[in-house]
């Protein structure tokens, strides 16, 4: 990949990739490091992608492996709320972020990966399988369980506040 095509690819992918790494790891500083490492490994591999989706899947696969390596090395380290990037400061949005972060904390890293890829990235089961290394056949079941767990946690939080 030459510099020009890398720049274009980077500009298209870096923000969603950072969001994925940040929210799955629960640590935005770690996401900063992992993003750079992911692009370095992507360039080092010097493979010829068939198309944009292929390159994107490959990049996410690298990022997912980095997340797993990091998770194996240490327990996830969640930043305090004040360290999280925030563009709004209303009590309502802050509280909602707590809800989600708290709910995400209770999910396994793999569940967070699946939910993010499916419902934020809008990836198909095939793409999720390529990005995570899981079997396509098991994605549906795992995704259903993760979604149910997240929804129950969110409902519990909402009920708890009433």
């Amino acid at each position, binding site marked *: 990949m030459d*510099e020009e095509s*890398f*720049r274009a690819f*980077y*500009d298209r992918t*870096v*923000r*969603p990739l*950072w*969001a994925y790494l*940040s*929210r799955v790891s629960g640590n*935005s500083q770690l996401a*900063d490091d992992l*993003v*750079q490492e992911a*692009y*370095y490994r992507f*360039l*080092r591999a010097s493979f010829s992608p068939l198309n944009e989706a292929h390159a994107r899947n490959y990049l996410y696969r690298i990022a997912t492996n980095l997340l797993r390596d990091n998770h194996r090395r240490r327990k996830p380290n969640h930043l305090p709320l004040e360290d999280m*990037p*925030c*563009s*709004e400061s209303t009590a309502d*949005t802050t509280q*909602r*972020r707590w*809800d*989600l972060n708290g*709910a995400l904390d209770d999910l396994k890293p793999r569940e967070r990966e699946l*939910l*993010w890829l499916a*419902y*934020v990235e*809008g990836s198909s089961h095939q793409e999720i399988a390529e990005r995570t290394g899981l079997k396509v056949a098991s994605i*549906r*079941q795992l995704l*259903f*369980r993760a*979604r*149910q767990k*997240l*929804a129950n946690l*969110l*409902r519990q939080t909402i009920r708890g506040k009433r």
Partner: protein
Amino acid sequence: MNSPSCEKEQRVLECLLGGSWPGPAGESLPEHTVTCPVCSDLVLAVEHLREESRRAVTAAALPEAGLVWWKAQLRLKRDAADRATQPIAMVERLALACASLSSAGVVFWKWPEISAWVNRLGDIASRASFGWTPRFNLLVLSACGAFLVLMVFALYFDWADQ
């Protein structure tokens, strides 16, 4: 165990990812998501995840593509240089380790001969009025020992540096 499914799940997901429900003439999907447990979980999970994603994407402070490219190129060059010099460095370390070990081995194995030789040397020196004394011999031996110890330290630091 098969997870419960809903025939409208995929359509609901498409609408959620697309950001809008079909118009009044379309399906009554919003009403359906209230009553269907599968789709209500889906709506709850997707809305929270996507809200979090929007916030993360806008708040992320990321390096420029050019900087990432430049850093990756530097690292690739450095890694290539490291790989190229690795065999040389390995042989150097091995040679140093062999020299240190064999020197120490010879000193321990041939200690009686070395000791006798040093004493004889001292006798010759004193006979020749060089003024060498047993204390001087001890000094020579201590210097040799210190040299060996220093070699071991040098080897260790070289290794740690690599």
